[in-house]
């Protein structure tokens, strides 16, 4: 993981063509997702044309790119790890706020997936397991003959 320090109030140039103020905003928007383990860090890069890119990385060991932020001229482009464009904006402040919202929604999506999986398990339990437990005699008789054969 690359931990990049950005001294406040220093010169405008930062690594890989970013400006300190830009990086500060982007890292502020993304850093809240580090403690929860949703993201493991970020790295910087640039395109062949020298346009700066900021990559937010997912949990280790894969550390796949969750989000990629690029600055093309005056436009900031937010993409996911599969190249889907999520957001385009020329105002960094609004862009950073919306990027944070995207991350929050991503967290909600994960929670929704977990909730859906839990509901499916619960449904399975209610449909299959509970009726079986409610009829112990039937269950015993179901298992009685194979158990008898083993004895």
């Amino acid at each position, binding site marked *: 993981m690359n931990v990049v320090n950005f001294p406040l109030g220093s010169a405008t140039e930062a690594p890989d063509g970013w400006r300190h103020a830009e990086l500060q905003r982007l890292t502020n928007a993304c850093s809240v997702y580090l403690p929860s383990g949703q993201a493991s860090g970020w*790295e910087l*890069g*640039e*395109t*062949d*044309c020298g*346009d700066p*890119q900021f*990559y937010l*990385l997912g949990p280790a*060991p*894969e*550390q*796949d*790119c969750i989000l*990629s932020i*690029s600055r*093309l001229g005056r436009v900031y*482009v937010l*993409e996911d*790890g*599969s*190249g889907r*464009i999520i957001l385009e904006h020329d105002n960094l402040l609004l862009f950073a706020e919306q990027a944070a919202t995207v991350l929050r929604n991503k967290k909600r999506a994960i929670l929704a997936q977990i909730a859906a999986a839990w509901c499916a398990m619960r449904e399975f339990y209610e449909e299959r397991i509970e009726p079986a437990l409610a009829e112990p005699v039937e269950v015993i008789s179901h298992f009685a003959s194979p158990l008898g054969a083993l004895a």
Partner: protein
Amino acid sequence: MTFAKAELLPPKQLRKQAGTWLKELRAKAGLSQIQLAKILGLKYYTFVSQVENGFGRVPVESMEAWANALGVDSSHFAKHLIQFYEPELHRLLFEVKR
């Protein structure tokens, strides 16, 4: 076309190797990142850079398009990329002797 075998490395490093390999293929095809993105129908070329820098992956659904754009056989292209992206799957599919 034959491709060199990928080494067993952590996922992040394997993706970097995949990116370097893709960049080489693009250079051989004589394409810029912008040109490749255009052929792939991408609005921006930033995803090509993301993949080549080793952060993103070529999505399975567009592997054929990438292979065609780079002028290589799509089956060999996908097989070689799996070596980087899913080394264990590659081992099971192509290396384990039956």
